[in-house]
């Protein structure tokens, strides 16, 4: 089963993205925790594209595609701007240090890599694309 969604680069659309993923996964009787993990991973990547790659420029847009088969959920998030955004390898954050520093950010991509089985960022032409996969059996 496949679905697609296009959103403008505003964090106001994050709720729409999460509802889109939840609706797509609702066709299967998956545990609530598993559904939430996929929703969270997509939300984190989309938020990064909106905020860090596009500076919340609402004239830019993202395309999401979901493909659910018997064993896996596969997600593609494509940034249609010409900004290349390729997050590097993420070390385990020192959360005690984050607390000491009063730091707000820096955990999103760590979460994504722990939640999903495969996380890839690459360029397609002038655009950045992210592929996420998770086994759901």
């Amino acid at each position, binding site marked *: 089963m496949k679905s697609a969604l296009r959103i403008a680069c505003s964090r106001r659309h994050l709720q729409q993205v*999460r509802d889109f993923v939840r609706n797509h996964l609702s066709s299967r009787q998956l545990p609530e925790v598993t559904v939430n993990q996929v929703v969270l991973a997509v939300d984190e990547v989309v938020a990064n594209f909106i905020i860090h790659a596009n500076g919340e420029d609402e004239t830019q847009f993202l395309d999401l595609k979901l493909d659910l088969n018997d064993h896996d959920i596969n997600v593609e998030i494509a940034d249609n701007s010409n900004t290349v955004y390729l997050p590097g390898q993420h070390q385990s954050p020192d959360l005690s240090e984050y607390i000491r520093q009063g730091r707000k950010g820096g*955990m999103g991509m760590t979460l994504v890599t722990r939640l999903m089985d495969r996380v890839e960022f690459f360029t397609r032409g002038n655009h950045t694309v992210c592929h996420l996969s998770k086994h759901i059996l």
Partner: protein
Amino acid sequence: MKVTAQPTADTLTLLLDGELDASSAIVLDTELAKPDILDYRKVLIDCTKLSYISSAGLGVFISHLQRFQDANVKLVFFNMQEKVFNVFEILGLDALMTIVPSATEAEAA
């Protein structure tokens, strides 16, 4: 995301209702940043109706925790849904924050 404050003599309970993400985290941040919150001995976070949290929401709690600790204000989460607790667990935040099952245990913490 709706945040409702219920103050008593030495405890402030914040009821979170909805989804805490990069868009709504500012609502909670504003509440936790209020200077008079440090006048309480304890801040209890009622998570009964918190149905989602992203790293932006977690970041709000992390960013205020040291300030609370320095002022001897205890931050305690209770009634957290399994899917929300799972997010704290994945990052190891369950070991760094006080998360208890019920309001009774939160009051006793």
